């Protein structure tokens, strides 16, 4: 066990993954500098420039080349520097990575991981604050995971590397160094497709993922202090979604708040809400509340706070569900 933050846990996961000769890490500045977040620090020195590859500034090229490697027997881990820079590489992900298994009926597969730091909250410039996860969640052929703790970060990363299919691995920027916890030094996996029941409670369920788990955690404390019995679910895996865990919880509590940092309209929260009402409409005592970012560009530093879903928003929303 070593106490580490998420950045370090991902680093540890990458180091473990690279022990497999088929794994390569490829992206802009992942080598010499160890990545703009230093997440791949030390890996170039350890595994050499053939396995830890600094690239030209060309996201489509990075994903496409990694895809070619994947269909020819390697297991590439791609890093895109920020989610806002995935868009130029989006065609490769959606048109090729996600489709080759079906297109070739299993003859060629793309067992690759696409790592994307995402989310706002650090006062960064435009394009550095994106939460476009729903685009990947909506794309058939991809799995999408989002750790919110160091333990899950390493475990989900190793599960993603092991997975025979492409996995989009989202790293909440704001959480990279926000929390520390003990992480096993040995390899282990956290299964993809299984949500975590973080807290058990009876009155209302708070559901989220990624950086929003921090706000949810704080809301949990406040609500609990005010006497509300709160259940908390960290979705962890958007695709496949662990519908069962969510529905079971709603059947018990009858109330829920779904939290997403992304813009509101057609975000992943809408899918969670849709599934809740599909499977548990008659358990609902109140409308499921969505606490979300707005349908705006994430504002720059000085007004960013107005965008971000806050602890207080979640607390208020939970109270609203408790009114009816």
């Amino acid at each position: 066990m070593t106490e580490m933050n998420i950045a370090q846990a991902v680093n540890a996961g990458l180091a473990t993954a690279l022990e497999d000769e088929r794994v390569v890490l490829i992206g802009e500045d992942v080598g010499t500098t160890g990545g703009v977040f230093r997440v791949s620090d030390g890996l170039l020195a350890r595994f050499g420039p053939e396995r830890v590859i600094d690239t030209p500034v060309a996201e489509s090229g990075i994903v496409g080349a990694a895809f070619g490697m994947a269909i020819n027997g390697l297991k590439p881990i791609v890093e895109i520097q920020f989610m806002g820079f995935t868009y130029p590489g989006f065609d490769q992900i959606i048109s090729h990575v996600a489709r080759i298994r079906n297109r070739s009926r299993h003859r060629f597969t793309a067992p690759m991981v696409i790592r994307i730091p995402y989310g706002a909250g650090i006062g960064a410039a435009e394009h550095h604050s994106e939460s476009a996860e729903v685009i990947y969640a909506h794309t058939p052929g991809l799995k999408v995971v989002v750790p919110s703790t160091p333990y899950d970060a390493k475990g989900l990363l190793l599960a993603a590397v092991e997975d025979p299919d492409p996995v989009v691995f989202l790293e909440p920027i704001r959480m990279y160094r926000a929390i520390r916890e003990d992480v096993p030094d040995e390899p282990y996996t956290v299964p993809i497709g299984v949500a975590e029941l973080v807290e058990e409670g009876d009155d209302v369920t708070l559901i989220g993922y990624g950086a929003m788990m921090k706000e949810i955690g704080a809301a949990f404390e406040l609500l609990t202090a005010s006497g509300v019995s709160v259940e908390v679910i960290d979705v962890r895996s958007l695709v496949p979604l662990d519908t069962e865990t969510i529905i079971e919880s709603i059947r018990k509590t009858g109330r829920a708040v779904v939290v997403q940092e992304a813009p509101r309209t057609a975000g992943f929260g809408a899918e969670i809400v849709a599934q809740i009402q599909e499977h548990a409409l008659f358990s609902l005592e109140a409308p499921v509340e969505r606490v979300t970012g707005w349908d705006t560009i994430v504002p720059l530093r000085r007004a960013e706070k107005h965008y971000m879903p806050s602890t207080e928003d979640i607390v208020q929303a939970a109270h609203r569900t408790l009114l009816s």
Partner: protein
Amino acid sequence: MFDTPLQRLTPNGDLLGESPLPLEEIRRLYQAMLSARVYDRKCSVMQRQGRLATYAQFEGQEASQIGAVAALRKQDWVVGTYRDAGAMWFHGYPWVNLILGRTGDERGGRAPDGVNVTPPSITVGGHMIHAVGTAWASRIKGDDSVSLTLFGDGATSEGDFHEAMNFAGVYKTPTIFMCQNNGWAISMPRDRQTASKTIAHKSIAYGVAGALVDGNDLLAVYEVCKQAVDRARAGEGATLIEALTYRMGPHTTTDDPSRYRTNEGVEEWAQKDPIERVRRYLESEGAWDPAWQAEVESEESDRVETAVSEAEALTPWTADEIFEGMFAEIPPHLAYQQSLLRRRP
């Protein structure tokens, strides 16, 4: 630079310089070109009969495709497009797969084990970088396979062409970029596609070797590709080859070329037919006779017929099967959707 395309056989079938191949091998490649044309024409006919979905003819481009693949070894990769059936087949992708694909059946996309041919790229431009990746992986794994990617003149305008060429240049991957400049990208003529003097000139932008070749000349295409393959295998990096050829047919069976071009180009290029050219040469060497030709054509025609019947005999997918290509194992949400689908009447 790149002033005149390399030519080894004139349209009349006269050999210029030395042949890069022995006569027997030329006969074999001639036969392959003939086969490809039989297939191609049959598919056009079948499409008109409603037995195939949209079809993209490659008539006129046989030398570019067969000549390029002739320079490869079995373990090498071929990464091409909807118009590269000749190349794919010659590298081991069965006609029945190609036809299956054209009937509208995903199973056509599955190359036999050991055949490193990717399903044809439908989107333009995105596949070239894959051949950078496959080639790169070969090197990392320590095998000496090279990767050939085929694409058109139009594809060179996509950003992905640029990123692929640039990566190939920086990492010296063993990739052969084979641009079949057939004069058109649907209705866009080559001279409106790019202001570059030739497409071969684009190699300069990436520090990659370039070559311009008569794409209707089997021997010249083979020679240029063989050099590129040898360089790639020797670790000397990638090559961009521009093969000058012509799309004799419509863009696809849904296209009406009379809207954007006269027949002049077609007639002019008919004089430079890649198959007739080799036939004349073989004949002049006493290595061709009409009986052989007829035999090849009829055998190939039968083979394609058989492939068509096989393809058509395959029961279409059941509803259940459409879920089976998505992941190694069907995840819960797809299983749920399968259950929704099953309750359909």
